């Protein structure tokens, strides 16, 4: 399975044989049932049950043995970015859903931290990131074919 397949499975929940309409219903019904949500850091199991994002390398991030590659980090940034955008749009029409709000907080914090880590090594993802040398010019740009 290549990285694209991984991404698809995580974001589209294909591994549960759900089509997109079912995913929507599942997400909506699960998120509306927020009676059990009282914390802002839902367990891994819990967050998978409601909104199926699993990321590789998460546990290995700090052990120094298997550092994620640039491609893996970028893929995770895309995944988290997608999760944040999707949940934010959901919250626009369900602002009182506390479970969705928890997930939004969890993923946007993870995204912020990961982007920070990525940009320190591989250069800025936006012009708001402070640089010692002007690495914004570095190729490839997103529309150019690359290995990451």
């Amino acid at each position, binding site marked *: 399975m290549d990285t694209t397949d991984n991404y698809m499975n995580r974001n589209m929940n294909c591994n549960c044989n759900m089509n997109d309409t079912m995913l929507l219903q599942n997400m*909506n019904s699960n998120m509306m049932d927020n009676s059990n949500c009282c914390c802002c850091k839902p367990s891994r199991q819990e967050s998978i049950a409601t909104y199926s994002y699993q990321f590789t390398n998460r546990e290995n991030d700090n052990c120094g043995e298997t550092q994620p590659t640039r491609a893996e980090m970028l893929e995770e940034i895309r995944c988290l*970015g997608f999760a944040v*955008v999707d949940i934010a*749009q959901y919250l626009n029409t369900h602002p009182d859903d506390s479970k969705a709000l928890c997930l939004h907080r969890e993923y946007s914090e993870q995204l912020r931290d990961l982007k920070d880590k990525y940009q320190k090594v591989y250069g800025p993802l936006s012009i708001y990131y402070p640089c010692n040398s002007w690495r914004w010019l570095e190729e490839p740009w997103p529309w150019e074919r690359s290995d990451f």
Partner: protein
Amino acid sequence: MWTYNKVLQYPINIKCPNPKLAKFIISQYGGPDGELAASLRYLSQRFAMPDQNAKAILNDIGTEELAHLEMVGTIVHQLTKNVCPEDLEKAGLGAYYTDHGVDVYPQSAAGTPFTAAYIATKGDPIANLQEDLAAEQKARATYEKLIDLCKDDPDVLDPLRFLRQREIVHFQRFGEALRGVQDKLAEKKFYMGNCTKKINPECC
């Protein structure tokens, strides 16, 4: 105000150029149901949208459509990269090459340049949101036709499937926003003073 993020919303890495597919897919860049029209439609409608939820939805979906515009442009670019003019001509892109080279130009599959006539801002929240719902369905239908035409290349199919799914989610969100607006309009109105006619409370 927008910030550019130097990353695509969904990865695109097309290994085999195929100008024939590019000729069709460019419709989702600058065609009647394309991403440019979608983005401009929502971002223009948001200014006078009276409903709080609908305003945010228009803003955020309009923003995501800009990311989709970049994705479609990327697909077209990678499908035509390093293709010689003869092959472009064979793929039916001879006229396109004459006017635009291998730049990406906002046009429909049939070659009609992008026009603001593709979008509507009607000055009415219900009419606008109904237009948005229809737009998402038309975009979904277009992606399904493109998916039929791109079955042989998984590198192209994969991002198209992602874009199709987003149309469905956006349709859902616009539907929820519309229901909110309709519920609000159906609420009983109470007027103070000697105002007897039913009038728009915002004008009082």
